[in-house]
């Protein structure tokens, strides 16, 4: 189990989601992906997609208008 980060700061929807989908596909089971976002709608569609895929997801507001999404594959 290892941790990976994905920087999506400044990316407009749906780019963060597509990047997350691609990155997560390359990871192994139980790996954790940390996605940094500052576009509020990515905060909705990334967790929704990941939960649909059956992954565990947590969201944390790390700074004003900056969030991190934790996805466990």
């Amino acid at each position, binding site marked *: 189990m290892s941790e990976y980060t994905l920087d999506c700061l*400044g990316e*407009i*929807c*749906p*780019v963060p*989601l*597509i990047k997350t989908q691609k990155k997560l596909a390359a990871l192994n089971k*139980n790996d*954790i992906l*940390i996605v940094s976002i*500052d*576009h*509020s*709608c990515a*905060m*909705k*569609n990334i967790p*929704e*997609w990941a*939960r*649909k*895929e*059956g992954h*565990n*997801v*947590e*969201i*944390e*507001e*790390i*700074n*004003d*208008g900056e969030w*991190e999404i*934790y996805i*466990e594959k």
Partner: protein
Amino acid sequence: MNQSLSSLAAARRNHKTKHNQLPWGIVVLAAIIGIAFFLFANVPQAAIMWAFGIIIGFTLQRSRFCFTASMRDPVLTGSTSLTKAVLLAIGVASIGFAYIQHSAAVSGLPIPGNISPVGPNTAIGAAMFGIGMVIAGGCASGTLMRVGEGFLIQIITLIFFIIGSLWGAHDFGWWTANIIPKTKIFLPTLIGWIPALVIQFGFLIGLYVLANKYGKRSDKI
């Protein structure tokens, strides 16, 4: 397994350097109320528009409501939650508009609302707007909401949105003369109020059922 994720989130939470935004919130709220009173004293109608604008903007921001995502996410992620939300919103608006327009029609007043001709212009415009909003990351309301929220990159979208609107307004005479049909279609006057409402809500309910089925189908859990 979920435990490790929440402890990771908790560990990273401690690093954050968030500012207390409460004072700013109070200042902005006071300004909103102050402007509302100022407008009400001068142009009462503008105060009502101001209040509705603030309420809609607040709802849009807090709910992460997004017309773009409602059309895009079914294709991209298989999620139809926003599609259903938009259909519900159109349904609620339809009830309100039906009441307002019916009361106007009954008392012989001109029917309020943007009743415009349907034709190839609708399809051309819809396709252009659809492609544009997915690339730009937001429709009109979504872009305004995100600029207000502080996502500054979408100011570029806003600038070109204004340029596009002005360009469209400038050439609107040409579109009216060459593309847009002359006759306006208002279903209730054409086929009666009850059939028009049955068609409207039949479509909305049908689309909702389809969206619901599609959303469940792509569920992998």
